[in-house]
């Protein structure tokens, strides 16, 4: 579609008046197919097959907006879908809230809207409601996105920390560090060329399959900010059990490792946007691994360790590649800039 004469977003586009209406009707609405959205009601009325729902919300402030393998739009859709997916739900609908900095080019907004529409479409999820605001230059960094997502819980699925017990295995669906390293490589101050791509992807299909074909999954989470280290520490801390993992079993793209080595980062702390960690019953571990490996998003899935009794304090311990042992702690601070 041709951008308006202005070519960039003006403050007035968020004013609620004529320009806002034009922006939404002519530029945003046509991107999305949802009938619920078409009449632009204040709220979307929905009929869901179940009253057992999952509901999530997320905000996306990634910088840069576009990176190898994705953009803020794709990230917003996939990230929200993944939160529903790892909760054991089938994602149904998303809300989409945009906060646009005055001066953002229409062409940039359009690319991102197209990306959002494409990602939602691929996962059979509808954008059913939304909001658009503009702020003056400097009050937001180009574009911030907020989403909320609704899904219906899959039949008979009960995931939770309380189900986890010593002996359960830890399944990781694929390589770690790809998203974070990709975004880092495009930072103005660190910039380096790389073949790396963000692993940004919607996991609902794979998690759905796992939950449908086995009964052994007890808990799932996607290791985004803070990486695998944060997720494992969260699990350990909530379940009050220790976790033992084996470094050699953790799948890492050598390019990611090399980049991390150059910059002094620990790959365990780096964000992922297309992976999940699952705690599974020991007798279901083999089957879960097979299901993942037979799915395009789980080709490099690996059983990386297990849940153990806590001892004095619950902690996450790793056996290193040379057979040594070290603790994996919750990462602190901001080793990395805005990555999601």
């Amino acid at each position, binding site marked *: 579609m041709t951008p308006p004469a202005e070519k960039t977003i003006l403050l007035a586009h968020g004013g609620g008046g004529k320009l806002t209406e034009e922006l939404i009707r002519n530029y945003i609405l046509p991107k999305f197919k949802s009938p619920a959205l078409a009449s632009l009601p204040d709220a979307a009325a929905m009929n869901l097959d179940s009253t057992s729902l999952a509901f999530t919300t997320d905000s996306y402030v990634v910088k840069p907006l576009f990176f190898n393998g994705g953009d803020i739009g794709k990230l917003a859709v996939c990230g929200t879908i993944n939160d529903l997916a790892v909760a054991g739900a089938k994602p149904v609908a998303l809300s989409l809230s945009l906060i646009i900095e005055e001066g953002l080019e229409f062409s940039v907004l359009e690319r991102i809207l197209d990306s959002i529409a494409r990602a939602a479409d691929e996962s059979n999820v509808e954008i059913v409601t939304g909001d658009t605001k503009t702020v003056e230059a400097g009050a937001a960094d180009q574009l911030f996105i907020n989403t909320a997502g609704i899904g219906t819980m899959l039949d008979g699925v009960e995931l939770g920390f309380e189900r986890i017990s010593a002996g359960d295995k830890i399944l990781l669906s694929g390589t770690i560090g790809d998203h974070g390293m990709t975004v880092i*490589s495009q930072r103005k101050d660190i910039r*380096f*060329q*790389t*073949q*790396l791509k963000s692993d940004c992807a919607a996991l609902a299909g794979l998690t759905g399959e796992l939950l449908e074909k086995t009964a052994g999954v007890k808990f799932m989470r996607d290791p985004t900010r803070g990486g695998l280290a944060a997720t494992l520490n969260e699990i350990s801390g909530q379940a009050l059990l220790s976790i033992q993992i*084996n*470094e*050699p*079993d953790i799948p890492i793209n*050598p*390019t990611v*490792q*090399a*980049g991390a080595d*150059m910059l002094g980062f620990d790959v365990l702390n780096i964000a992922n946007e297309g992976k999940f960690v699952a705690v599974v019953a020991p007798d279901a571990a*083999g089957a879960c*691994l097979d299901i993942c490996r037979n799915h395009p998003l789980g080709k490099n899935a*690996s*059983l990386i360790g297990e849940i153990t009794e806590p001892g004095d304090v619950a902690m996450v311990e790793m056996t290193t*590649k*040379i057979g040594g042992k070290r603790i994996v702690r919750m990462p602190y601070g901001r080793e990395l800039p805005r990555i999601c």
Partner: protein
Amino acid sequence: MGNRFGAKTTLLPDAGPGDIVLVHAGFAIQIIAEEEAKKTWQLIAEIDEFSDTQNRVSG
């Protein structure tokens, strides 16, 4: 390894394209002989093979 970082060769005037170098803080500081580099990569590969075996056994 798939990444490309920029580095200056001011400290290694004899370095040329194709040389394997050690880099620190944006400068190449030493040329590594190919056989030696191969030994390190071989070792890294050995460690990876070792872990693959572990994976098959535990998976």
